């Protein structure tokens, strides 16, 4: 399996670590916002534990630990293993630098 790291180019998947589904968003909550703790717990339960586990194209996190240490967001088909796209996570080093105009 080959992953096209936007910073390093195409590399063997052995250089990368997989985290999983990139769709769930970490819930945000106000510390003293008065939101019911039950509701916040439910939202976190959903975020931490429940998965769509799609058979088809899914967005997912990969970490290029054997290379540039960037977190990447890939679209990949879990049935064929085919990658559709690989982009840098919002805060990946060069992405941030690019935004800052460096």
């Amino acid at each position: 399996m080959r992953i096209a790291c936007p910073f390093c180019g195409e590399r063997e998947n052995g250089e990368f670590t997989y985290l999983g589904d990139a769709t769930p968003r970490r819930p945000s909550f106000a510390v003293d916002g008065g939101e019911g703790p039950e509701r916040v717990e439910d939202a976190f339960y959903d975020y931490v534990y429940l998965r769509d586990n799609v058979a088809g194209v899914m967005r997912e996190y990969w970490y290029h630990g054997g290379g540039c240490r960037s977190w990447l967001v890939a679209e990949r088909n879990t049935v064929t293993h085919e990658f559709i796209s690989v982009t840098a996570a919002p805060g990946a080093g060069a992405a941030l630098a690019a935004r800052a105009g460096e």
Partner: protein
Amino acid sequence: MSGYSQSEPFARTAAMEANVRKGVTPASQSHRLPGDGIIDRRSPLRFSFDGKTMTGFAGDTLASALVANGVKLVGRSFKYHRPRGILTAGSEEPSALVEMRTGARREPNTRATTQELFDGLIANSQNRWPSLRRDLMSINQLFAPIFVAGFYYKTFMWPAKFWESIYEPMIRRAAGLGKSAELPDPDHYDKAWAHCDVLVVGAGPAGLSAALAAGRAGSRVILVEEDSLLGGRLLSDGGEINGMDAREWLRSTTRELVSLPNVRIMNRTVLFGVYDGGTYAALERVSDNVPTPDHHQVRQRIWRIIAKRSVVTAGAIERPIVFSGNDRPGVMMASAVRTYVNRFAALPGKRVALFTNNDDGWRTVETIQRAGAHIVAVIDPRREVSAQCRRLADTYDPRVLAGVVSDVKGGVDGVSSIAVTDKNGRTQRIDADCLAVSGGWNPNVGLSCFHRGKPIWREDIAAFVPGGAPKGMATAGAANGELSLGACLREGHGAGAKAAAECGAAGKPGEASMADDEVYAIKPLWHVKGKGKAFVDFQHDVTASDVTLAQREGFESVEHLKRYTTLGMATDQGKTSNINGLAIMAEANGRTIPDTGTTIYRPPYAPVAIGAFAGHHRDENFHATRLTPSHHWAAGQGAVFVDTGLWKRAQWYPRTGERDWLESVTREVLAVRNGVGFCDVSTLGKVDVRGADAGVFLDRVYINAFSSLAVGKARYGLMLREDGIVMDDGTTSRLAEDHYFLTTTTAKAGPVMQHLEFCRQVLFPELDVQLTSATDQWAQFSIAGPNTRKLLQALVDPSDDLTNEGFPFMGAREVKLRGGVTARLFRISFSGEMAFEISVPARYGAAMAENLMIAGKPYGVTPYGTEALGVMRIEKGHVAGPELNGTTTADDLGLGKMMSKKKDFIGRIMAGREALTAPNRQVVVGIKPVDRARRLRSGAHVIPKGAIPGPQTDQGYVTSVCFSPMLGQWIGLGLVERGRERTGEIIRIHDPLRNEDYDAEICSPVFYDPEGVRQRG
């Protein structure tokens, strides 16, 4: 760009040259033909099979040499131990398997048909006792009426305990084939990468055409061929291409390919796997054709080939026909007969019968007659044969019989006669010493089906052709079901040109080579029904009646058939048997072959040595070794090292006269507690955290606050996973307003860095913070003991104030060392003593160790290892790996109060779940055996005193233990249910594994200096 040279196809070793000079004569080669063949008669080679010495020539395979020597019997089958000979001339061989070489290089199940002959080759037959000719295990044939498919599922059940003691050992001994070596493999293996535009798999006429077209067009081409020579069937069947002899065409084509700098030819290389993203795996047999690999050379090499396009021209495999006695030594595939005669000048038989249901088989007539042997009969069940065949019949006038072979007589000495039955059921016997069989050709669809592609049935050739090939792969030639030479050349050329164009090659691929499109007519004949055993899978002894039995019992799916009968599960993976098996199943079921379907094709295409996959990663090189900056210094001090992940760490420093590790460790602890000692802690993960939001960032990843930490201060931090369980701990210091220095445990350095990067890049990209792993940049030493300050004052520039006021407990800042090096100094303590940790650039690590020894000499400075470090942390009740076990919460560790309520942090919400905050959780406590002489052991369990051990009374376990020099007894930490409420309770330590049971007291985990006076001193 190729090591392949057509002009010198044989690697001639010194031994061969010597033989030529000695003029060894091949007296034993009774079946060697005078004609040419592609062998080097100037290079006779001596080899032994089952202890008998014979000779062959360079260019021979072991199988062709055995044929030349008139050897018929080569092996015994798996189940019935029936005598078996050589069926094929390729890697599909099911029968002629031998143990190659001896001793540590003994290699079971090697196909004689692909093993190149070399001088001094030693091979032995396998799966027989006491000898190949007289194999007592062939008694199994008497039980054949019972030993049908799946018989073992129906018996061996009574009495139950006999399975492990009687039945199974008997079955295990009888099963298996060859014996593997019992000594470590002395050879080396390599793994390499290669990249190309177009990968061509198989160098027969189609593959050569494809490689040439793509190469001429300018693509980077890799051509792999499992044989030692290029040419495929051209080497055996010849023909005419572009008006010249096929061998001449082969020479000129090879010459051109070799001359193209963008074409790489890899012979002796079998492509065995197709993986994702255009990754192909191939095995190069570098040294299997020589007695032992040359010095510094590997035996085999795995290639991971990254190709934009591939053209699979892997040819086709001739299939047997299932009839009674079709497994006798001397029954051989017709194409193999031609290979042995034409390529190797070795004659499988002198009176050859041919049994074929297709035109291609008829080629054998010409081959045999030209070789000066005799075709005793051609048996063809078809009513009509093509003009081609009729021409052959006219030219050579063989006896042609319309019918089928219904039985073969023979034994260990080969075939003696065959029975031919015509359509009216009349049978006649014909004397023959060899029966050539052709049931048609199966395109090699394996590689194209490795991504679950379903092959497609083609009625006209009665075979499956590729369907649903992986992205980027094309198939051409015989592998695609195009069996004529002309079509192979055209298709190969077209596929090569197309692949090159798709890769953007702009050059011209040239014209396709031309040859006749000879007719290939076939009338399927799968099974000649009869009384005797008719074999479908030769190696596994699966017969036609096994297949129909499976059908009767409901194992109709091809996968059930395979699993119930073991059809196709032998070392050849059913290359010669699967299609016949499923055809017989289809007939029994009254279904069509395509409806019946094939089993799933799995890599590897040909079996690959496990050692090759491992490459150099074995023994001490299994994984990398990380050495601390002071490693060599510590080694010089005689340190004993321990593996901690990839690191080697000094565990203790034995001194002469010390009886055991405990005495050394105790000395080291006492030296620290009473004086001063130091320990290399460079293995801790170190991360530089910089940026305006560094403090905010750390607030989110730690349970406690770091934005409030003053510059010049250090703080212990605890990190949770998002599920609320403790992930890691460590000390983080603030070196400047926007600069923190974070440390992790040794074990978690990698995962924590990954987690921090995830938080930074994914969860909180809006924060202005950068992370730099600095683990390898800093050598870090812990210096501990009452004399630490005095020692440091000798090292640190006098301008730096190291007094309690100038550098208080939990202080952290850069200091200048005498001599000018800048170091980072942290006043933190794991041991509970007055202690500092000092960081210097890693290149000064060894020098630092030496300087610590010099500066500390007046105070008796003692280097200490990880054991003493562990003892002191247990005495102080500090938690570490055994307590941070991935299931404990901050509160379980006694650190619940650190959890800030004023901020969001990773894990905060999930940590609040009911079961994680339940009052009966197991929490960290101290444990002391009541009998002070008792040794406490980790992993022992905690049971209430007086209770009977059982799942209901199992209340926890001992996590960490040490002999405490300060308390003079063994102590430990443990995780115990409601432990903190139970201080002072006497509990039972239950350790059935080590047969120990004793009382212990639950106590505070802080055994030594509970007020923490010493570290502040």
